[in-house]
């Protein structure tokens, strides 16, 4: 009986990948453990090993094919003695969905925005000059470019963390930096968050500008003493003498199916601390402009990224030096009926909900906080005074969350304008479960946002 070889997933969040190379040809004998192909994503490269014995009967996806969906049939192994030609005409028809091999345009190619109907437009709202060319880029590339540009312009900037150099980044955010800047400025650390966070803070106290990558912010909990006690408080405790220009960055919040210890959203935790700036971008352009601003900022910045957003493509202005202001929210969609405030991956739910609401005749105004501390309360209040309603969306837990803070601010500053109570859409008040169905239930969803908007607009 023939064995079907499917496109494997390299990570919990991988949906598709490139089949870069076949290491066996049709007709070759295969033993368990033989490497038969190489699979590649923007994050990693992996070898596909055979688990069964037989003959590679048919290659269904040619080498060099990009964007092959996970679980697509890529080859057939015939059992010993089985007729190879027969195996080739297995009932599973050769896939038609295979993308054209290696013909996709290079990511950095300058293409006018109109050529990318699938990529959300980036409303510059006065932050970039008119007529600036916009190019598609993933958030991963935007973050990498931000670091590289700042490292080119300032010798004091260096990148440190686990697997940032030779491995090219656990999530490939630091890809290519070692090659350009060398091991003096792109530094692999041992697995020792508490220690290396303290070392980076100590270096920052002398005026160097470390960009410290945590493989995830879940691991930064071991280093949180240095983030708060050593980095955030020193300027105050020194009477303004000794600053700490450092960026702590890495993925924050839930990825997919990684369980309770790898899925926590720390936005509210860091948001609580005077002396810190907390930034959490939702798209590639903001990621680039804000990370550059964070690296230049003389204060400690906690820069919360999101693993699921890393691979998402957005339009990024093609400028020599694109820097966004920290502390300024962005109105991502204008509307008059209800204000939806969110940030990071929460924006995905907020914007989809706004689209659905539009079909129901409810015009939602969606505010992307971008910076969580200092929070751009003025923009929120101005919107709520217009709409009279407010919903917050975040993946973090409900108690003392970002939504709780927004709710209090709205109550204090726009109470008389409210036509309904503020509703918080949050992650559920539970440790993140592993089971797919439970995890889905634990996270917010578009339906909840839509329901909340209908409730506050009484429709």
């Amino acid at each position, binding site marked *: 009986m023939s064995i079907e070889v499917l496109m494997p997933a390299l990570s919990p969040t991988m949906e598709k990948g490139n089949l870069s190379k076949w290491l066996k040809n049709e007709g070759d004998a295969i033993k368990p453990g033989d490497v038969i192909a190489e699979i590649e994503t923007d994050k990693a490269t992996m070898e596909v090993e055979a688990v069964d014995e037989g003959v590679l009967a048919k290659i269904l996806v040619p080498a060099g094919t990009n964007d092959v969906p996970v679980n697509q049939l890529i080859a057939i192994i015939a059992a010993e003695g089985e007729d190879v030609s027969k195996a080739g005409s297995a009932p599973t028809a050769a896939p038609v969905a295979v993308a054209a091999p290696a013909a996709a345009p290079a990511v950095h190619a300058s293409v006018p925005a109109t050529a990318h109907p699938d990529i959300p437009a980036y409303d510059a709202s006065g932050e970039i000059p008119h007529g600036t060319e916009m190019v598609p880029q993933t958030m991963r590339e935007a973050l990498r470019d931000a670091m590289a540009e700042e490292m080119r312009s300032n010798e004091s900037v260096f990148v440190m963390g686990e697997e940032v150099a030779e491995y090219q980044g656990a999530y490939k955010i630091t890809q290519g930096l070692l090659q350009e800047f060398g091991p003096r400025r792109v530094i692999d650390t041992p697995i020792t968050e508490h220690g290396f966070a303290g070392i980076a803070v100590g270096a920052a106290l002398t005026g160097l500008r470390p960009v410290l990558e945590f493989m995830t912010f879940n691991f930064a909990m071991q280093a949180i003493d240095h983030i708060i006690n*050593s980095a955030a408080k020193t300027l105050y405790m020194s*009477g*303004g003498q000794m600053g700490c220009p450092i960026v702590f960055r890495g993925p924050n919040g839930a990825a997919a199916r990684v369980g309770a210890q790898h899925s926590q959203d720390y936005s509210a935790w860091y948001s609580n601390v005077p002396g810190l700036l907390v930034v959490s971008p939702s798209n590639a352009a903001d990621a680039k402009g804000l990370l550059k601003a964070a690296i230049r900022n003389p204060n400690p910045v906690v820069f919360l990224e999101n693993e699921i957003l890393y691979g998402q493509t957005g339009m990024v202005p093609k400028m020599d030096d694109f820097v966004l202001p920290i502390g300024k929210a962005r109105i991502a969609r204008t509307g008059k009926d209800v204000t939806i405030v969110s940030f990071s991956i929460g924006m995905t739910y907020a914007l989809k909900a706004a689209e659905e609401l539009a079909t129901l005749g409810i015009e939602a105004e969606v505010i992307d906080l971008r910076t969580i501390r200092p929070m751009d309360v003025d923009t929120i209040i101005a919107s709520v005074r217009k709409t009279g309603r407010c919903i917050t969306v975040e993946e973090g837990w409900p108690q003392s969350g970002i939504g709780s803070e927004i709710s209090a601010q709205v109550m204090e500053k726009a109470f008389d304008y409210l036509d309904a109570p503020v509703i918080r859409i949050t992650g559920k008040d539970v440790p993140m479960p592993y089971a797919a169905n439970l995890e889905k239930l634990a996270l917010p969803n578009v339906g909840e946002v839509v329901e909340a908007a209908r409730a506050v607009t009484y429709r």
Partner: protein
Amino acid sequence: MAVAAKAGSQNKSSPGKAGAARGARSLTRRTNGPVALSKDEEVSAYRDMLMIRRFEEKAGQMYGMGLIGGFCHLYIGQEAVVVGMQMASAKGDQVITGYRDHGHMLACGMDPKGVMAELTGRSGGLSRGKGGSMHMFSVESNFYGGHGIVGAQVSLGTGLAFANHYRNDGRVSMTYFGDGAANQGQVYECFNMAELWKLPVVYVIENNRYAMGTAVSRASAQTDFSKRGVSFNIPGEQVDGMDVRAVKEAAERAIQWCRDGKGPYILEMQTYRYRGHSMSDPAKYRSKDEVQKMREEHDPIEQVRRRLIEEWKISEDELKAVDSHVREIVNAAADFATTNPEPDPSELYTDILR
């Protein structure tokens, strides 16, 4: 890694030989012992230690009068450690320590008025009244605190050394911590990285025998702190921390080791604090006799004083002149600290961000 390449090449080129030569036995040793100081050095050590002693006595007195709040940890008894270390270090070398930090600041040349006014929480304090006893800093004097979290200064001090290495400026970080902090996990994380990257840091472990009220033998499986770096190949020495000559001698060797690019060095300073852990210490964990014996037989200041009289034939009058000069400075600091105004209420919201 390349940041270590220059410094580490010697060790890395002959791992077999280095490994044999740097076994546990040869990595740690007792210090060579005291090497005589010049007359000027003795006088200056006497003055600097006396300054710390008198300053701390005054701080203790002012604490008792309610002029100093919160926690106040006095350095009395340990003066020879920081003074001896400073005698061996050069301009530009950094100092960082924990919460028992007044002595270190004075030894770094920071203004006693500014230190005392910080203790009383006044606007003329080094941190403009916002830091207090445990949190003072001076960019100018390369003093990096003053840290209230036990062990945190070890990582930060290693970071100072990282910066020196990154800039290749020849500076050395003097990172002080106590026998209590030596049991914190981050200390060993940093020992590992410091040796791995050959960072120029002298770890000065001030073993004053008690972590708050817990005797070393009740808290530490290995009470020879000079051996705490053995598994990372960091050399260490036990030093008589009550003898400023021994401290200086060992410090010179350790600092040179760092400046030569050979990586970190551990100095266990065997010392003693006469006063309690903080001002609110009941002192039930040790006998009065033990304290008395240390004071009578090992006092760091008395040792120098005796040598100045017996070996250098300095007259009592000359010493009295030094004493009264020190007292004048300390009294002026105390006057300043009690008359200087508290910070303006508007200061509450300044210095949070730059």
